């Protein structure tokens, strides 16, 4: 009898602060280019990871969230030119995640993923449930539904 086929998942690879993160492609609304000079910086943005707002051609404004600061607490060196950002989040709560680099779309088999023990976060927020072995490191699956709780720390 043939073994049941393992389901695969497609992820968008993002690099930030030396780590590799995976976002399920069905949670990515679009990838946009941002020019630092066109980033607005409203005074009411107090969160450290919030680095400004970007205006789309249609006039819609989206908050830009630094992925390195959000997930490692450390900013990356500023980009010299245009950067790519990823629009994620539910309607009304959408943000642009700004990694150091947007990579390719990759597929992983469900069974190849490793569960992350929640203990490593102590009393903190267990923001990542699974990781996949990469070339020399782990690739951390980022669930965008957990982003708001990550930002508030609750």
């Amino acid at each position, binding site marked *: 009898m043939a073994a049941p086929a393992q389901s695969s998942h497609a992820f968008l690879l993002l690099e930030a602060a030396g*780590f590799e993160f995976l976002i399920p492609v069905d949670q990515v609304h679009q990838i946009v280019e941002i020019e630092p000079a066109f980033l607005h910086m409203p005074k009411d943005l107090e969160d450290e990871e919030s680095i400004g707002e970007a205006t789309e051609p249609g006039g819609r404004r989206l908050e830009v969230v630094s992925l390195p600061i959000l997930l490692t607490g450390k900013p990356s060196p500023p980009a010299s030119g245009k950067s790519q950002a990823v629009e994620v989040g539910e309607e009304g709560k959408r943000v642009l995640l700004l990694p150091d680099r947007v990579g390719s779309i990759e597929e992983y088999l469900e069974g190849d993923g490793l569960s992350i023990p929640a*203990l*490593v976060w102590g009393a903190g*927020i267990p923001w990542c449930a699974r990781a996949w072995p990469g070339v020399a490191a782990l690739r951390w699956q980022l669930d965008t539904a957990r982003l708001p709780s990550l930002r508030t720390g609750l």
Partner: protein
Amino acid sequence: MNSRHPSDSSKPSPAPPGTSPLWFLSTAEVKNQLIVVAAGTCQLALPAGAVEGFEERGLIYPVPRATPLFLGVVASKGRLIPLLSIDKAASPWEKEPEGFDFALDLGLQCGPSLAILRRGEELLGIAFERFVGFHGPGEFTGPRPPAPAAKWVQASGTIDEIPVWVVDTGALFDYCKARLP
């Protein structure tokens, strides 16, 4: 070429309990023994009943936003196990030295062997340099070290004038899950 005497084929009768090394420790006795390992500047006495196993430590993967008590996770038998930093568990407010490259120096911070502690479904890894030996459960009766190590060390002692901390594994798991000051 070795020759075998016909009488050698007869099965040797088992040594009576208490006289053979194999009979020296029963399973129940082993569970109560303390396995002492050298980890950094101190020696840890781990209750054998709480140790799932020992193995060679693999690569350490740093974890974004992990509590500072952990160096990262290590892979073992298809699982990822949180690797505790004993130094940080003893003094979590210690800062990394200036110029410390977290990604490069993780493997240099701790020993090449791994002890895996288990509490129910939870696992916890401790890296160490070498085995020191088995010791009886009542051999170390000294006072607890200063806080916060006192929260997960139930007694202390010495072997060859080197401090030994008897680990209360349940308290250690609880300590790792608590919010740090």
